[in-house]
């Protein structure tokens, strides 16, 4: 399994990362997830993403490795941005490549669910009402729980 993991301030290109993973005779299915900064009710001005350098890379590596033990994957790319991001900017990219579409879909969702719960990133939103740290959602913990049953 070819693994690329990056934590960076700059933007990423889905096109470039996808191009790196194509042309593999065994790779019948590629699933890409891109998460972007979306508007919130209070009117988002910008967002700042803080992380825990060192632990972030370690946790992301563990999550991708675990996905590779659960599904037959030939490649995974995981890029997460940090720093200040404006509305509609890209935050996270997950690319999963497999011979089978079910494996590519499941592994991609698994990586996002674990990332949302176990990778040390924190969002602070800046809106017309000022700055505030985003509170963790119960729905993310619930999304994670479904993988334990499998």
């Amino acid at each position, binding site marked *: 399994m070819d693994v690329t993991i990056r934590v960076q301030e700059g933007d990423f290109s889905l096109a470039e990362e996808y191009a790196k993973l194509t042309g593999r005779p065994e790779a019948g299915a590629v699933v890409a997830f891109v998460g972007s900064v979306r508007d919130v009710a209070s009117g988002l001005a910008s967002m700042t993403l803080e992380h*825990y350098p060192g632990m972030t890379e370690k946790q992301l590596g563990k999550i991708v490795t675990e996905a590779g033990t659960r599904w037959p994957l030939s490649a995974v790319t995981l890029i997460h941005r940090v720093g200040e991001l404006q509305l509609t900017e890209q935050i996270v990219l997950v690319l999963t490549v497999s011979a089978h579409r079910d494996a590519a879909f499941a592994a991609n969702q698994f990586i996002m669910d674990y990332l949302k719960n176990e*990778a040390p990133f924190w969002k602070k939103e800046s809106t017309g009402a000022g700055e505030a740290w985003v509170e963790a959602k119960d729905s993310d913990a619930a999304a994670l729980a479904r993988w334990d049953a499998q």
Partner: protein
Amino acid sequence: MTIRILYFARLRDVLRTGEEELALPEGTTLAGLVALLVARGGDWAAEFGGARVFRAAINQDMARPDDVIPAGAEVALFPPVTGG
């Protein structure tokens, strides 16, 4: 033994510190460390001694209250994560 503690995100803002060193008895657990922090009172008691949820890592792995802290460890305390 001496350990290093890191605070992130909202916790760092509220406690007005991102990092400190602390001398602890050998064999101290994460719960034991948290009890020491609560004993400082004020914001420390409010963040670590009440209903507020927080997470901890020891040497960059998620940790649980009864985990023993090794000498020289890097302990991190932070709010539930919100990336992705």
